[in-house]
């Protein structure tokens, strides 16, 4: 008659052997906290012959609201001090802003520890592999952030490494990330990798020759980046307000801020 009958159910009314809940399976909840949001924004990276340009807009959104008009997505990484004056690497993160910031701070700490232990800054190649490991370590509760890492490789050439949220990565000539990636990437394919560009009058069908691929100059890339973002701002509501550009050369990292449409 009584389920807590002492003879039936052991010695007493201890909390530990209180009967389990009959209905609803273990752990079932009607409402569940969603730990992720998308804060919009877009990033872009292009590697040149002896430089890399990393760029991102500065808008932070949630839904249709603009939370902030100046929230940088592009960061110097691994300098000796907090002001990053001697940094050699740049990381851009876009997606869920809180995860992006946490990821940035972890990678920055790791690069600082590396510099402290080895007495030299981390190479892009090493940092790129480490970033992949960090992302993959959280494979089952990922950082919801699309990261791009930029710097100069051992030969002084521009290097861009792009990632997905769980750590798959590859070195590329250029990459767009975030909300307007699908708008910017085809433009980059055409303008940086010269896809679908042919030598005029070189022939018909298979005889048609592709345009020769040459690395772009710094001035050309800066204009390309601005054009890419102006296009994205026009067609994507989550992109706008400001354009932040980091130019990495052997002389250091130069930061450029330009206005974008604020509508």
């Amino acid at each position, binding site marked *: 008659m*009584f389920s807590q009958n002492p003879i039936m159910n052991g010695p007493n009314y201890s909390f530990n052997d209180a*009967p*389990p809940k009959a209905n609803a399976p*273990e752990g079932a909840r009607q409402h569940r906290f969603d730990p992720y*949001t998308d804060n919009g924004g877009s990033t872009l990276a292009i590697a040149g012959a002896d430089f890399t340009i990393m760029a991102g807009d500065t808008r932070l959104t949630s839904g249709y609201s603009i939370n902030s008009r100046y929230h940088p997505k592009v960061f110097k990484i691994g300098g000796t001090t907090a002001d990053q004056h001697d940094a050699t690497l740049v990381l851009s993160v876009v997606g869920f802003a*809180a995860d992006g910031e946490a990821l940035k701070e972890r990678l920055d700490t790791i690069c600082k520890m590396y510099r402290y232990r080895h007495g030299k800054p981390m190479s892009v190649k090493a940092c790129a592999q480490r970033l992949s490991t960090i992302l993959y370590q959280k494979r089952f509760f990922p950082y919801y952030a699309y990261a791009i890492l930029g710097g100069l490789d051992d030969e002084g050439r521009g290097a861009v490494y792009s990632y997905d949220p769980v750590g798959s990565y590859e070195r590329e000539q250029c990459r767009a990330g975030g909300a307007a990636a699908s708008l910017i990437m085809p433009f980059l394919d055409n303008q940086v990798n010269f896809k679908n560009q042919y030598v005029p009058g070189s022939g018909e069908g298979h005889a048609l020759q592709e345009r020769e691929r040459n690395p772009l100059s710094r001035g050309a890339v800066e204009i390309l980046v601005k054009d890419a973002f102006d296009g994205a701002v026009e067609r994507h509501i989550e992109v706008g307000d400001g354009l932040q550009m980091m130019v990495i050369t052997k002389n250091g990292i130069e930061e450029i801020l330009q206005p974008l449409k604020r509508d």
Partner: protein
Amino acid sequence: MDHRPQAWGRPRDDVYGAYDGSYFQNSGPKFATQSPVVTGTSVIAIKFKDGVVIAADNLASYGSLARFTNVKRLRVFLDTTVVGFGGDVSDMQYLDRHLNELAIDESYENDTTETAAATTTSSSDPSSTSTQTPNNPAGSLNAANLHKYLQKLLYRRRNDFDPLWNHILVAGLDASSKPFLASVDLRGTAFTSPSLATGFGAALAQPIMRRYAATEEDAAKLTREQAVDIIKECMKVLFYRDARSLDKYSIAVVTKDGVELKEEEQLEKQSWAFAERIHGYGTQTV
């Protein structure tokens, strides 16, 4: 019938069903806040030339019920920073206790009684001491530090799937004594802006505040009186249109001279004339 003392006063299973003891279990999943219960609505704030103005009404709602009408949602930290809480009130009270502890620890580590006495006797230059408020010497937590702390706290809790269901504004001064205003939400997303608003305020008050302070430069031109007027106007608009709001509110002005907090403000010069022209909502048929 079981007449033994162990069964006395217990509901009968054949009448009430087996007792659900899952509440007492200390193994298995944790019972984290999965939705807010008693909630506060918008917090709004705007920067001006030498500080920040922040306001929130004094209502804590239980769903659509105006449950507690005298809840203070602005909290002063170390006499130099104001924290405004939107969202769950019990989580706010937990954070309030936590910040009290933090403030006490900070005050012990940066004991001002000896050093303050030493500086007044040794230095004859009054300007060196006037830049600091008595309870916040350089080295103790400023608004920017506190905001970072709260961001880490809330992000940690979201990682544990045990969020503190709040959207928080932090108003004060940063390390270089410039006005500081920033926000952090239950997922640990943090950002700054010349003006900020949580909840309904993001839709209703933020556009009004951005008319006056679209950029940091615009905000740096605003006087204290202008900033207070803008905030009061926004609180009025929020009371007109946010059904979970109250005409009694708290307002605080943070400058380098400290915090001036008023917790019993009443909305002034309301005009509901506009309501006459509204047609077509709810049960109205004509």
